[in-house]
């Protein structure tokens, strides 16, 4: 158990030009292996390989365990290679399926690229890991992860925190087998980060969100597939996010935009969800916490988040509803208790209400055939029996809006107007309030397309659980508003009949290149919608 020998053996690639470590460990004695002596030649780095996505690997890269064979444990080589990296390092993981038995943490990396040989060619299996997250990038900027798969992480797959500039592409996070509660938490997980670009990834089997962006800003999530997770793609307490050209299938909820209470970044804004295929998200919800409340069979759910535009998506075959738009009062109905429970976070600007959600030009078909989920149980019971505004059993609304936050706001002092006293000056200046909804606050849905065959138009409905107009509201003996379960066919535009201004596109500046609809995708069809 002498480390000295192990260390020198591991530094097989002299291009790991960390003078620091080499000084510490002495001559590795293996320079020149494979004909590479690690000293940059005059001709510049030569291309030695290409990943399945076409990314070129050059001979000046740091090759981790290049001679490892399937099943080898490459933990130590990986830990050593990713410690104290030079700027703009290219770290190459070997081809094959390998075991990693510890979580890998990378600190303050600048310009780092970690690549394998392809999303199916380089697989790291963390099923026996003693750590929690498979990879965690803490601090740093301009970091790329690509062309590899992270399997069976004990907790999260790839977490990045406080990184400015994170690009994850052609990367998989997978928990194989059925979706179970002890699968890992988040798959791809940028948190408190800036300039986030997530594309061409595959997230499967997370017991929370497959692709989750939390408390971040300037975000593009595109061309990913999220399958068989509790939440497919989730944008939480984040601002300036574009989510487009993704596939969300087989999750409990397809695409989520949430603002949750009590977080350092108290609320998000300006989230655009467009041109995604969101279908058959009917997995049983095995999650815990707030995401555990997402009704199975939900295409899109907007929870207590404001300034969200959902357009030109294909939202089909979700058993409960295509799009649910709800305040936090559906999660916690104890309105009187909000001061105690959420006073501090409401001062920071978190709000249980949902405002300015604009749903247009989506194709909606074959949703609502088997609505379920504990959160919606009484609402489901009402719509699928005669206990709704139509007086007869209806196909569950494809567009479901709870309305209660808006009604309570519109009720002024009799509702939640008193919450205005909680809002701190900074949040108030940013427009957070509990006044009656202004036109700019409204939830609007128009120009959505009923994709069902003509005779079945009535199966695509819009539902309002509570009326938003105090004049039509009714109250129980305690003065609390009563649910009315309003419903009509979407095509009749009876409810949510308004428009909102379009939201601004997200801009990701990654290593001085602009990505998204104002950058490399300027000519993409989705960006013209």
């Amino acid at each position, binding site marked *: *158990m*002498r*480390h*000295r020998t192990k*260390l020198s053996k591991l530094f097989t690639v002299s291009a790991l030009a960390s003078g*620091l*470590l080499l*000084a*510490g*460990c002495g001559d590795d004695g293996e320079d020149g292996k494979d004909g590479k002596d690690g000293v940059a030649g005059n001709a510049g780095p030569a291309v030695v390989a290409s990943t399945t996505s076409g990314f070129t690997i050059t001979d000046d890269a740091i090759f981790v365990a290049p001679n490892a064979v399937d099943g080898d444990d490459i933990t130590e080589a990986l*830990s*050593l290679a990713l*410690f104290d990296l030079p700027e703009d390092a290219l770290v190459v993981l070997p081809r094959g399926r390998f075991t990693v*038995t*510890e979580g*890998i*943490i*990378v*600190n303050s990396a600048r310009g780092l690229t970690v690549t394998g040989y392809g999303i199916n060619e380089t697989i790291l299996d963390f099923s026996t*890991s*003693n*750590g*929690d997250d498979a990879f*965690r990038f*803490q*601090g740093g*900027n301009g970091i790329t992860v690509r062309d590899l798969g992270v399997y069976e992480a*004990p*907790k*999260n797959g790839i977490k990045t*925190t*406080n990184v*400015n500039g994170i690009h994850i592409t052609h990367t998989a996070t997978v928990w194989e087998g059925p979706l179970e*509660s*002890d699968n*890992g*938490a*988040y798959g791809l997980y940028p*948190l*408190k980060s*800036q300039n986030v670009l997530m594309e061409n990834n595959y997230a499967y089997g997370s017991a929370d969100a497959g692709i989750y962006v*939390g408390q971040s*800003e*300037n975000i593009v999530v595109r061309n990913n597939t999220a399958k068989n997770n509790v939440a497919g793609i989730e944008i939480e307490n984040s601002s300036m996010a574009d989510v487009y050209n993704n596939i969300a299938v087989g999750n409990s909820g397809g695409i989520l935009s949430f603002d*949750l*209470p*009590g*977080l*350092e*970044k108290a609320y998000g804004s300006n989230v655009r969800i467009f041109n995604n295929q969101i279908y058959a998200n009917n997995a049983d919800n095995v*999650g*815990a*916490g*707030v995401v*555990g409340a997402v009704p199975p069979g939900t295409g899109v759910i907007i929870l207590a988040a404001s300034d969200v535009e959902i357009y030109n998506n294909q939202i089909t075959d979700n058993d409960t509803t295509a799009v649910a738009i709800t305040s936090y009062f559906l*999660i916690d109905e104890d309105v009187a208790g909000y001061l*105690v*429970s959420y006073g*501090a*976070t409401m001062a920071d600007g978190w709000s249980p209400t949902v405002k300015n959600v604009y749903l247009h030009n989506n194709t909606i078909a074959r949703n609502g055939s088997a609505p379920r989920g504990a959160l919606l149980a009484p609402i489901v019971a009402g719509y699928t029996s005669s206990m709704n505004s139509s007086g007869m059993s209806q196909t569950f609304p494809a567009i479901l809006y709870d309305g209660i936050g808006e009604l309570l706001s519109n009720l002024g002092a009799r509702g939640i107007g008193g919450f205005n006293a909680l809002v701190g000056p900074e949040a108030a200046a940013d427009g957070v309030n509990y006044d009656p909804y202004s036109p700019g606050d409204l939830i609007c849905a128009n120009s959505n397309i009923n994709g069902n065959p003509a005779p079945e138009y009535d199966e695509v409905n819009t539902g309002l659980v509570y009326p938003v107009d105090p004049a039509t509201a009714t109250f129980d003996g305690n003065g609390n508003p009563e649910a009315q379960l309003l419903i009509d066919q979407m095509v009749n535009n009876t409810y949510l009949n308004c428009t909102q201004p379009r939201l601004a596109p997200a801009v990701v500046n990654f290593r001085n290149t602009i990505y998204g609809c104002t950058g490399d995708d300027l000519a993409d069809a989705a960006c013209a919608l």
Partner: protein
Amino acid sequence: MRNNNKTAVAILATSLFLAACGGGDGDGDGTGGTLPPVGSALNAGAGSPTGAQGSCSATTSGVNWDALMTEVCPKLSDYNLFANATDPTAAPTRGGVPYDLSTALFSDYTSKYRFIFVPEGKTVSYNPSEVLDFPVGTVITKTFALPANTAMRGGEELVIETRLLIHRTDGWFALPYYWSSDSDATLAIAGKRLANLTTINNQGQQITFDYSVPKAADCNSCHSIVPDLAGPDDDREQIFLPIGPKARYLNTDYAYADGTVYNQLQYWAEGDLLTGLPSDFQSVEQAPVFDDQVSIPSLSADELNDAARAYLDINCAHCHRAGLTLPVDYAGPAGSSGVQLEYGRDYATDPGAFGVCKTPVAGGKDGYPFDVIPGNPDDSYLLFRMTTVDNRHKMPELARNTEHQEGTALIRSWIDNLPAAGCSTAP
């Protein structure tokens, strides 16, 4: 890794401290440097970095400061921090001062032996609530040793690892050394996992667990504060900091090797090692002593709350912190989690920051609806996370591979005694 008998070693370890603390000048023999000690400071004669490139193979009579400042040495002994290179638990090289914390991070029941080395001529500046301001050149050593029996610390112990925190000119730098043999500790950048270690706890139960020596990269997980990135052009980096040596944890008596029992802060101040200690000593914050001997049922309500708050602070708040006395727009690595557990945070203002009635954000577990349910520790996710060793859920994330039964008993009692909240009656 080796066994030693601490009692015997302790007896041998006194000479240096007699010299260092007795106020003598010119008593420059022993392990001190060739330089004559200057004045009566605790670090008189310790030497200091020269600013030149160091060498791991340099032979120095005192601390190998230059190597510490510039080199990652393969062996702990290269730095010459201990009079006896095979024993990092006692007898530091001239200038080293031992210290202890009144309440400490739990690390799988290990005993910890801490020393601070401040370059000669430099002093530590007092800070009322954050970690003390240590000058460039400061080195902190912490050695982890697993006792055969936690009721008999200092007896038979397995010395496992020694971690260094080095304050270099470009910031703090951490290095882990693993005692791979009896004779020396070797650099362990990739960490080390030791299977099936055992100890007997204070209740007389034998506990078996795997012990993990963290990787060098893991140090930042706890030892950093991270910038709250203010916009797309914000390139600030995380800042590495020590955690334990804050006034409130040092503000307790220590039994020095020469038999002196003295408050550590006053000892440092009177030894010209610490400046700025308030003359009104009563104003210095003090965290209570909590160790495995403390009888939790005997604590008053105030003592229980104070002990629990200190325990949560030292075990959790290096990550779970935001605002308060941090630099503007920095937070702990878990500052974004919604749970903040700093000693200085006012509970009444925001119980939710302590997890009270807060739904878990990331993860969560069925059967644990809220982080903290006052009066109901069994259903509180926070306590579950402190108890379990399941990697998906356990807290702290690192350096805990077995339950700290005494610590969880304390937090259980704290949750039991919190004032009832809206979720207290939840199923």
